[in-house]
């Protein structure tokens, strides 16, 4: 029951937040940009919690670090988009945006390579298949 009330409050809070966001924003694009920004902030908070829950030096922690920097770059990119949309005097942001998006993809490529490495190191499917074969042969005997 307690959880249902919490969920309801959460839904109401999100709905009112979205209503205010779309009501106050000059344009829909800007509202969507602000919404993306909130998702980015939430992603950073969750990644930070995950990072500090993992053992220092562990492979997964290194992966979360790269992933975290990638999200931060993406968040800054979203910020520059907002600045452009609100007709700010700082308009010459195209090159900064190019740099940010390129850096984000580069960081995500590194993170993807790390997760590939983690998969290779921690995957035991090949060994499990060999064991299954040995057990089958043993049973036949």
């Amino acid at each position: 029951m307690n959880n249902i009330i919490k969920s309801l409050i959460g839904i109401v809070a999100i709905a009112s937040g979205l209503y205010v966001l779309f009501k106050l924003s000059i344009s829909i694009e800007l509202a969507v940009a602000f919404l993306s920004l909130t998702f980015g902030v939430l992603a950073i908070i969750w990644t930070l919690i995950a990072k500090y829950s993992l053992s220092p030096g562990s492979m997964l922690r290194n992966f979360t670090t790269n992933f975290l920097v990638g999200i931060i770059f993406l968040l800054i990119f979203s910020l520059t988009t907002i600045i452009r949309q609100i007709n700010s005097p700082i308009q010459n942001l195209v090159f900064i945006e190019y740099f940010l998006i390129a850096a984000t993809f580069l960081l995500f490529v590194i993170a993807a390579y790390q997760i590939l490495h983690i998969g290779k190191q921690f995957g035991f499917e090949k060994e499990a298949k060999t064991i299954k074969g040995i057990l089958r042969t043993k049973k036949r005997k």
Partner: protein
Amino acid sequence: MLSKENKKKLIELKEYVALATINSKYNNANIELIKYMTEEVKSPGVYVTLNKPFKTIESDLKNSKVDTRIIIFIDAVTKTVGGEIKKTDRCLFIGSPENLSDLSIAMDQAITSLKGKDKFLFFDSLNTLLLYNSAETVARFIHFLAGKMRIWKVKGIIISLEKKANKELIDELSQFCDIKFEI
């Protein structure tokens, strides 16, 4: 030696979390338990070693005619180059017993990769974990591990060497386990 009473206890339960305290002849007791799992129960499993290097364990088990081919080894004692994780076709080297996150992932992946109902997880040992981590961290880790063992539905054996200094912790940890026996 694994007593008849202990064997009966282990046979009666299909899945369990057992805390085995070893008083003497640590090596023989370990081999005895693994032999029981692989020969009598005939189940494959995962051997997590924090105490002795994989090479030593493998050679000890082979000398006692244990089929090591049906065991996946996770070695957290052998130092790897740069302290990085390294995998060979027989064993996964974690590099350090402090690295509990990687150790947990390795155990999870190794156990879940083994198909079939009967499988075991042998964790050797609690005492080495205590050398590298605080008693509180070890207690939390064992609590987590015992919970995971139930989810994985394995025969889980956690080894602890009998020492007065660890008595309090062992008593605390035995709450999370289904069986506690001495060898």
